[in-house]
């Protein structure tokens, strides 16, 4: 383990903004993609069940 | 001979027609009828080889048209909806280039004679922009006299033609059939020609 304390870990030796900015952007981007994908799937499934009701 | 088997056409999510079968022997003609949007033009475009069908085959003399595209297009004379006339060019130039691009040369005298036969004498040097819809149609149909082709596919050939020009057109088709050619055309009106059948989509 490289870190003595949790606050050391958060500070990243003074590079906190850059390191967490990178990791955060990746996490955010992926989560956003997953959320959009889920919404897309739900939209199409709602449309499908609507079709069944019509028949 | 043209033979069509199991043809299915789809536009977007809608199926226009499916499992279409027919054969067209030489010296015969086929009229394709159907309501607006039934897929008449789509069928013609598939037959010409412009659109790929979802399903089915089109054979010309037993050969799939897409495998021998150049041979098929040598035998095919297609006059489409839009006409392929350049407004900036005069009828003579239009015919000269459209024949040239297909690899058929035409002498200026032959071009002039064909235009004359369709009643366009005196207008050979007028840009197409200044011609009426019927006159443009006549320029297009002059191609039938100049460009050899065993099978004619004509999309609405009688549109915008007056009585006299329609008769001329019918005579042309008759002559073509007598020579052993065949023709497929779309039209809403009955056509006074023998040796034909009608396909309703």
């Amino acid at each position: 383990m490289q870190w003595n304390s949790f606050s050391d870990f958060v500070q990243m030796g003074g590079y906190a903004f850059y390191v967490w900015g990178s990791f955060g952007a990746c996490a955010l981007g992926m989560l956003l993609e997953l959320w959009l994908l889920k919404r897309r799937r739900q939209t199409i499934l709602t449309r499908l069940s609507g079709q069944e009701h019509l028949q | 001979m043209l033979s069509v088997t199991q043809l299915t056409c789809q536009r977007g999510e809608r199926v226009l027609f499916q499992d279409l079968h027919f054969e067209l022997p030489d010296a015969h003609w086929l009229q394709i009828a159907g309501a607006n949007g039934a897929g008449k033009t789509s069928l013609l475009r598939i037959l010409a080889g412009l659109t790929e069908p979802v399903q089915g085959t089109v054979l010309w003399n037993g050969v799939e048209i897409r495998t021998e595209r150049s041979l098929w297009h040598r035998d095919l004379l297609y006059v489409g909806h839009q006409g392929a006339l350049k407004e900036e060019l005069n009828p003579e130039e239009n015919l000269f280039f459209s024949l040239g691009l297909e690899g058929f040369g035409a002498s200026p005298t032959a071009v002039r004679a064909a235009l004359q036969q369709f009643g366009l004498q005196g207008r050979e040097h007028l840009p197409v922009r200044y011609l009426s819809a019927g006159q443009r149609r006549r320029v297009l149909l002059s191609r039938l006299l100049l460009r050899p082709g065993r099978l004619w596919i004509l999309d609405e050939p009688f549109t915008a033609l007056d009585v006299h020009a329609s008769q001329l057109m019918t005579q042309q088709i008759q002559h073509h059939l007598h020579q052993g050619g065949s023709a497929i055309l779309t039209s809403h009106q009955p056509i006074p020609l023998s040796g034909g059948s009608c396909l309703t989509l």
Partner: protein
Amino acid sequence: MSRSLVNWFKYASPASFYPLAGRMIPYFAAAAAVLGLAGLWIGLLVAPTDAQQGEGYRIIFVHVPASWMSMFVYCVMAFWSALGLAFKTRLSGMMTAALAPTGALFAFLSLWTGALWGKPMWGAWWVWDARLTSQLILFFLYLGFIALQSSIDDPRRADKAGALLALVGVINVPIIYFSVQWWNTLHQGASVSMTKAPSMAHTMLAGMLLMALAFWAYTIAVALARVRCIMLERELSSEWVKRNATE
């Protein structure tokens, strides 16, 4: 019924691929999560501090995998496109379309993390380095592909046009990369090059590889999920959709 049968034979059929993809997604998603957590553990907690770059170098654990994936995904898209044009399989067009947004995301993340890495190391958010520049162009290629596909309504046409563009792009990518490098050596603007990565400790390499594998599994899972959506959207009216949708 006859139409859905026709589809079964004519194409590498969506009807049979749809449930298969559905079964594969959980495995890849789980792999992505496990590998990702392991990679983060090693990258953020175990790997030692770099002698020159301090803790700032830890950006490498997301930056390099994202860059790799963005290039790799474009090649896979080109592969599916070639397959689609050669064999007219409908599935390949859908796969290409499903991969593009994820590839674009990774290209963007690669640029973003590159900028955040460049600022503390070189003192600038952006340098006209050959790698950065060609990555930017790759991002543009992705955007072009997505824009072209989404502006054509007929899916069959959109697939073919997209496939052609992806192939033209993939021929151009090495030429662009080479030309940008040539241009860069001529101008010598940025004296720091990103290629000189610090000689890497084993733990760092392990962390990077784990993260790369995690991104890989993530990409597959997301692409499969997206291709399922695309299949449903395109074949809303066919029989198999009605049978499968409720499952």
